[in-house]
């Protein structure tokens, strides 16, 4: 129970609307599992668990298995389809759009994760001291987490519009207008910025809990030894919250690879003019839905999404273990 078991989030976007998966134990190790009591009819537990098992089975586990199976068929929305072996995966290798999607989703991880591991930690340190008004600031910084990704996306589409607030300010200070939403790379970068902006408050709260467990004496001892703020940050704070940083890294990298909404809203359903800003999940949505949806092919792309997210998890956790050694 003590190793992070986070292998996936259940919502889209790095600042999930729902709580996340279990991480390192906050509870003391060696927790006993209460035995529960056997003072009920033999079938009672199954009656209690039935609704949950039914929903989870029908809408999570079954679709997961059927995705794995469909990936090897040429099933379409209205056509049952037949087993085609690895044909879908062979087609992927020649599909330029797939490589664009894989590139963009991977770039998203590289761009978003470092920012979401470091910035919320700094923010948590900023709001950690109990100075007057601090609860107001904490809540205010959390506001973007509460808003729907659609609201957030549309707010920033307007902010970054050619004639929007950011460009008005840039022009007023003499920089000139920037085509945030028209250039392929600037758009992807802007979407990453939006993801980070929305996720800051969420991870800040996670870090705040971790910082509360750093003994104050450590800081004081380091200060007595003559360590400046920078040095104390790297020798006291970072080691103390390292397991939380790994957790945040794991959660945010999985979420970043599955990015959909931000880019969909900012670049449009087709992912920009030539589809150059398409992400992998956008491709799944585009290929697999609608009446002519290619369910088999979209499932094959989904399998790639599964494999990469699991690989990302293992990579982050392994990097953590290496540092231990």
């Amino acid at each position, binding site marked *: 129970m003590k190793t992070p078991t986070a292998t996936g989030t*259940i*919502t889209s976007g790095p600042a999930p609307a729902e709580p*996340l998966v279990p991480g390192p134990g906050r509870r003391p190790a060696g927790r006993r599992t*209460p035995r529960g009591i056997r003072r009920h009819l033999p079938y009672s*537990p199954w009656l209690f*668990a039935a609704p949950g098992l039914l929903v989870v089975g029908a809408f999570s586990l079954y*679709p997961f298995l059927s*995705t794995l199976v469909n990936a090897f068929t040429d099933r379409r929305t209205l056509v049952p389809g037949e087993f085609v072996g690895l044909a879908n995966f062979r087609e992927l290798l020649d599909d330029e759009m797939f490589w664009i999607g894989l590139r963009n989703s991977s770039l998203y991880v590289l761009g978003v994760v470092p920012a979401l591991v470091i910035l919320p930690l700094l923010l948590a340190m900023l709001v950690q001291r109990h100075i007057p008004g601090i609860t107001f600031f904490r809540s205010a910084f959390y506001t973007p987490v509460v808003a729907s990704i659609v609201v957030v996306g549309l707010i920033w589409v307007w902010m970054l519009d050619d004639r929007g607030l950011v460009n008005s300010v840039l022009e007023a200070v003499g920089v000139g207008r920037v085509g945030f939403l028209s250039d392929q790379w600037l758009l992807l970068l802007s979407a990453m910025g939006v993801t980070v902006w929305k996720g800051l408050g969420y991870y800040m709260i996670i870090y705040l809990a971790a910082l509360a467990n750093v003994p104050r004496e450590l800081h004081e001892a380091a200060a007595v030894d003559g360590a400046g703020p920078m040095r104390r940050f790297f020798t006291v704070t970072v080691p103390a919250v390292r397991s939380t940083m790994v957790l945040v890294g794991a959660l945010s990298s999985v979420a970043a690879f599955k990015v959909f909404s931000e880019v969909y809203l900012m670049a449009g359903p087709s992912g920009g003019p030539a589809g150059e800003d398409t992400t992998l*999940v956008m491709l799944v*949505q585009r290929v697999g839905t609608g009446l002519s949806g290619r369910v088999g092919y979209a499932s094959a792309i989904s399998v790639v999404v599964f494999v990469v997210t699991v690989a990302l998890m293992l990579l982050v956790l392994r990097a953590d273990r290496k540092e231990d050694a």
Partner: protein
Amino acid sequence: MSVINVTDADGKRIPATQLVLRYVLLLAVLALTVGPFLWQLSTSLKGPHEDIFGSPPKFLPGEPTLDNYTRVAQTIPVWDYALNSLKVATANVVTNCVGAALAGYALARMRYRGRRAATLAFILAMLVPVEGIMIAQFTTMRDLGLNNTLLGVLLPGSIGAMNVLLMRNAFLNLPDEVEEAAYVDGANVWQRFLRIALPSVKGTLAVVAIFAFMGAWDDFLWPLIVLSDPENFTLTIGLNYLHGTFANDERLVAAGTIIAVLPLIVLFACLQRFFFRGVGEGAVKG
């Protein structure tokens, strides 16, 4: 000179320079996080003849008006969409609270063969990413004849595996003895669940309720896939539609987004501690 004497939780005085620096940084981050919302609000209140593109920008509406909110309702049935979102979100709260409490109780408080297997099923379900299975979910919904219905929007998340495990953890923390005593007094398992166990986990139940509401109200990807008829749109899908179709009027889109975000900001303002607790329990539970 007046003495700035601010102390922190441990009664230590914070030096004035550090204090000023902290507030300057806090205000800067505040402008960055809340500013865009306020700009959107300001845009939604600006009159039709007012320049919303000017440089330097005007932060306050010169002739504030609610006209845009009326006009957005004439462009898309925004209140119907809000009602659809409200229906789905409310139903999602009920199904998640009831389903997760029942299943969580069965996983934590009862003894039977298959308990580990049932727990494992929920853990596995929690690890399956929605983005990876949405196409299969869509075909399942088609088979059930539920695509393009609000029920179809609701069902996949109606009892979240994560919520079941949160409830399980909450029930695990209760001592066995109280329920044993109730059993001796003749309470059956249903009475023990309802009258003894459930009242002890009200806090976690509130967390589940809030996140169920927010999750359904904010959700975008799944409703986008399952809903095709503008009649049944939820608010987020309706906003996307508005943005795609009437993108030329920023005031309308701004009014729509404010309608979508305001209820949640109010909810958050009232129930903050549960939001924060949810982050803690969700992300750092063992």
